[in-house]
Every structure is written in structure tokens, then in C-alpha cells.
């Protein structure tokens, strides 16, 4: 039997926050404006400065540093996320979902609190995110997806950019397998 984290298809991924399996097809099926955005301005450095600040603040709220636990910044969650959704075979729909979600989070923040997400205090962030997760379908899907990538950053091999110095493995007393992948033999380079 396959392990519990076997590959998931796009729909399952989006619903359950799993990982995408359907690799990128040509961008031809996307609207021209989005296709242009993905192929020119944002293919390799996906997030704008503001988007980067927003996603970093969100990840730190979802996975905060504690006295005995690493936080999102410690595990390189933002860096890993950008790698994951700009990897060549990542489904454009997934990439689009992440990027659009940041904009929708900002819209919701301004609508409910009249300011951007990074300016909210802890309780305001919590109320906003709980509303999005419990009351909106897109918010539930999007936050689940962001959490999935946080866990990938936490527990994937450091060769992928997350889990620096095996901080996630050490925190969870996880024994990795061996041999571990060199950076030139990771997914996308095999």
C-alpha cells in the first residue's frame, strides 16, 4: 500500500491542502493577462515586496516560534514556498491560488479592519483568519495550502531550502533516511 502522503491530484490538493501532482502544462489555457504575468514579471521572483511581507507575517502567525519550537522564519517557510510554487512543473493553478490568496487576504483585512494584514495585532489576525477558514471556501482551501507548504518546509530535506540545519527533524526527533539527496539530485533535477 502507498504511504499516507502519496501523490495527490490537483483537485485533492486544493481541497485538502495536499501537494500538487499535476505538473504544469503549457500556460496556453490561462487568460492572456495572467499568462503574461506568470511568464514575465513573476516566474522566478514571484512575490513583490509587499506580498513577501504579507506571506511571511501569515506564516509566522500560523507557525509561530515558541520556547521549544521553531517558527516559520526559522524553518525558511517563505523561501521554501517561493521555490515550491515556482518549480518548473508546479501546476499554474496552484501558483495562481497562492498568489491570489495573498491579495484576497489583503482585501479582507482592509474590509474588516481598514488596514493591511501586516498592521493587524495578534487577535485581529486570529479573528480574520478564523473567519476566512470557517466561513469562506477559498479561505479554507488557501490557508490549508499554506499550511501544507509550511510542513514541507519543516520536514523536507534541507537541500530544498527549508528545514535549515535539520531544525524541523530535530524538533520532532525525526530520524531521516539515508543517503540524503545532494542538491543536484533533488526533485526537478533528476
Amino acid at each position, binding site marked *: 500500500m*502507498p504511504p499516507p502522503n*502519496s501523490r495527490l491530484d490537483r483537485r485533492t490538493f486544493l481541497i485538502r491542502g495536499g501537494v500538487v501532482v499535476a505538473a504544469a502544462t503549457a500556460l496556453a489555457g490561462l487568460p492572456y493577462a495572467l499568462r503574461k504575468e506568470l511568464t514575465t514579471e513573476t516566474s522566478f521572483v514571484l512575490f513583490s515586496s509587499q506580498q513577501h511581507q504579507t506571506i511571511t507575517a501569515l506564516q509566522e502567525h500560523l507557525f509561530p516560534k515558541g520556547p521549544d519550537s521553531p517558527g516559520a522564519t526559522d524553518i525558511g517557510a517563505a523561501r521554501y514556498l517561493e521555490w515550491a510554487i515556482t518549480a518548473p512543473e508546479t501546476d499554474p493553478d496552484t501558483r495562481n491560488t497562492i498568489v491570489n490568496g495573498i491579495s484576497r487576504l489583503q482585501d479582507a483585512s482592509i474590509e474588516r479592519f481598514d488596514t493591511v494584514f501586516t498592521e493587524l495585532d495578534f487577535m485581529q489576525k486570529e479573528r480574520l483568519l478564523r473567519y476566512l477558514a470557517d466561513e469562506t471556501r477559498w479561505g479554507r482551501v488557501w490557508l490549508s495550502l499554506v499550511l501544507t507548504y509550511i510542513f514541507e518546509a519543516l520536514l523536507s530535506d534541507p537541500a530544498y531550502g527549508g528545514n535549515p540545519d535539520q531544525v524541523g527533524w530535530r524538533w520532532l526527533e525525526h530520524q531521516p533516511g539515508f543517503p540524503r*539527496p545532494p542538491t543536484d539530485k533533488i526533485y526537478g533535477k533528476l
Partner: protein
Amino acid sequence: MVDFDVCVVGSGAGGGPVALTLAEAGYSVLVLEKGPWLTEDDFYKDEIACCRRNTYSRNLREEFHVVEKPDKNKAWVATPTYDGGRDFWNGNMVGGSSNLMSGFFHRLKPKDFRLLSEFGPIDGANVEDWPIAYDELEPYYAKVEREVGISGRVVDHPNLEPRSTNDYPHPPTAEHPVAEWFDDLCRQKGLHSIPVARAILSRPANGRSSCQYSGYCGSYGCSSGAKGSSRAALLNRAVASGNCEIRPNCHVYHLESDMSGRVVSANFYDVNGDTQTVRADLFVVACQAVETSRLLLLSRGPRHPNGLANSHDQVGKNLVFSGGGAGTGTILYDSLDAKKAAQLKIRGPFVNRALQDWYYIDNDEMGKTKGGTIEFLFRHPNPTGRAIQQKWESDRLLWGHPLQNKVHRYFTTAGYLRFETFADWLPNDDCNVTLDSALKDKWNAPVARIKVGKHPHDLKISRYLARKGYQMLTDLGADKVSWGVSSNPPGNLMAGGCRFGNDPKKSVLDQNCRAHDVENLYVTDGSFMPTGGSVPHTWTIYANAFRVADQIVGKLAGLGLATSDADGRIRI
């Protein structure tokens, strides 16, 4: 004029034995494999590459299947796999899915070859006896032990199948201390603990290293070469013979037949996407059950208007999987004494235990019927997938410290033992492979449409076995056991679709796995199986492929094609 004596399409457990046997017999063999040629140098314990991305399967946007299954209202609903949550590619590479198997190896038992005679017909099931008996396959089970390299220890038990040798050629792989817990419990309960044979070398042999016990095996390619994949154990030797060529990244889309009905060539796309053709005297198809049926259905010819070997509309019928259930038990370290807690934390060695006390059942509750196997193992160690599952509390998304505390508890306070049950998936009219009438792959060929109807009898058996597994985990000290049975097919345990038999109207292949109506076409993957037994299929596929290979050698010798250098052969 032909290019090779034999062309083998597919390089997994069905193709490897044929390629090796024929190459070593001196025949020229070409193996066409759809996927790349990866080696031990490409396999790492990398969860992202292994299990969270599609490294070893096709791009589902380009090459997919359509799966047809009943919804809650029992209406049949068809969904492409790029949009439906299932993937029926199991390892597209040289050696096929045998690279990624766990290698839990069991033989079928004599009664599995005559299920209809032993247990009678079941309404709604197309059960047939096999056209061969266990005794005819036994020498080849033994051959697989030597050639593939099987480690284990034979112990006597009521359902032990007859053997021509006393024990396995390799001692068991290192055993986890939990195996002893299991043995003790079985003694108390009067059950028969079976050490599970593994297609994993416990000591170096045939130029391959032994297991390194990294704790990651199933779903991963083996970096030491210990796992008995078709590639590591057989194809490397076939190539070394000088008579076998493997061409990776070659997708065969059509087998061309002439006016006499013989197959004359394989048409394929090479690594550049260019069309190529190769001619051979004899063709062997071993693409795994679904794709084998699809290729035959796609290979129409002047004498085969409905596809090769399909004169009686049998290709694709009676597809089977392995029926079953599974459960996971949580054993809290705090519930154990210090010694046992330390034992439970050990990673690397295998539990390697199974029960077959209910392989056959005859009691008031179930009547006389066929049961199955219960396998015991640790939960797969992949951490990311297990962590992700913690983000849900019932239907509520968790985050922050509550989530982190839950994840930390999950990983640091308990060990997780698992059982998996294996029972027959009864062949039936609602489980088959056809060509989809609308959807095509990137090569513009109709994709396989897989209808996955499951007979209710199988669920009843699976539930019975799963309850036994649940009780074992509970008695081993599990604080809680989550378990269930499913009507969803495990895509990595497929067989049937081209069953062998003596009646051409009810089978595709004869008893030697040659197509009834194509004299130079053989099928050697799991497609031949009329019933799948109540164990994983791989050992039987290997054994049967070696058996058929010997038949092919005899046939070629009879044709006067006794050497690889026969005049007139063109090597390319």
C-alpha cells in the same frame, strides 16, 4: 528480416525475467521502456521527490487514465485522474514499479489455483480455476528466490505452501524488536506468526549490496541495490550478457500485425518524440495490467479489427486488484516500560510478520470461504504527510501553538504499528479496462478507462480480516486503533485483464500466456491472472514470467532460432 529475435514492451516484474532468460539463452532481445533508466545513483531518501511530486510517474495533464466508479447513489461516474485524486501509474522507469515495491513476498497457495473448484461459484463474480496447478509454478517460485534474491525463514504453519527447498537462499533481513512482541502474542493466542519473506538482500549477492536499513523502503527506489527490482536483479544481468538492449524513454503506441495475424513490428515514440519502428520474431507485452490491455486494444490490424488478441472481446475484462483494509495502532511510550519504549523507538529493521491463520475460513459466522493475509509493519516513516494530517481537528483547521503541540505530541510520544489485509478482488463484469471514447493522451491516443467495481463479498472478507488485525494491535498495547476497509482499488496492486485459460472464448491467453489468436505474442505481466490470490502479486508475476520465458525459449528453438547470431539479423 527482423531487428531482434524478441521485443519486450515494459521492463518490470513481467518483462525482466523474459529478457534475462532469453538473453542468457543467446537470443537477441530489445526491451522498450516508457520511462527513464534510473540507477542506484539516482535514488535518495527524499520524501519530496519520492512521494510528494510526480518524479516517477507521468505528467497527468498529458498522460492519464479515466476512472469509473460508483458514487453514493450507485451511479457510475467517470473522472480523469488529473482531476480525481487517483493515480494508476506506479513507476515509469526501467524496472517499473518493482523499483518502488516494499517487497513483501508471498507465494499463492495450491487452492488459489482452483478457487472455483474449491469454493464454488459466487453470484456476480467471474471466478475461474487457473489452467495450471501450483506444482507447475513451484519450481519458478523457487527460481525467483535465487534469481531475484529473497530473504526469509521458512516456518511450518497450517497454510504453508509446498516447497521444493527447505529454506530461502538468504537469511532474514534484520528484525525489529517488535517482531518478538508479535511472536509472543501469537504464542499466547495460539496463532501462527509467519516471518515474511522479503525481496531484499540480507547479505551481498550477485554484485548487489545488502540492505542498509535506512527505515525508508516502500515507495522509494533502493540506493543500495538490495531490493530485488527487475532492473537491479535481472535486467542489469541481461544487458551484461551482451544480448539485451534496453531503450528507455520509448513509448510503444501500436503493435503492427500483418495479413496472417502475426505481430511484425512495434511502433514507438523515442526520447525525442519521433516515431520509430522495430521488427522482431516474437513480442512480449508487460506494461502492467491496465496499459497492457490498452496497448492490445489500440493495436488493431487486418486480422484483429478489435485489437490484438481480442477476437472474443476478452481483452480488458476481469481486471482485479488486491482487496483489503488497513489500520494503524497508536502505542504510547508512556504505557510501556523503559526497555520496551526504547525498543519501539528503534528505526531501521523490519517487523516482517504476517498472519495467514484466516487464509481459509470455515466457521459459523462466515461459512466456508476464502480469507486472506494480514501483514504487520510500522507506519510509513515519511514525516511530511503524517504532519499534514495533524492540521485538521475534526473539520476545523488548526494552526499556531495548538497545531504545533499536536504535531509534537504525535511525533514524540508514540510509535505507530500498522496492519494491512490482502484478500481476493473477485473478477466481475464491473471491473475492466476499455478505451475511453472521448479523452486522449498527448499522443492523441485514447486513454484507458478503468471501471473499478468491487464485489460486496470482498468487503465482507476484508472487514473480517481487519477486525482480526484490529484485535492484534489492541493486544499489542495500542492505545487506539483506527481502521477501515475500502472499495477503492489500490492502483499499485493490479492484475488481470488478459486472463489465461483453456477456452479462447473466455480467456485471452493460453496456459503458456501466448495469445490464443496471435501465434507470436505473449503477455507476461500480472494481466494473465484469473484471480489474484490473497497476497501481493509480485512474486507470482516474477515466477510466471520465468515459466513463460522457458516456454518461449522452447518455441524459438523449435523455429530454429537457436543463437543470437543467426544469419540475417540486423542489429540496430
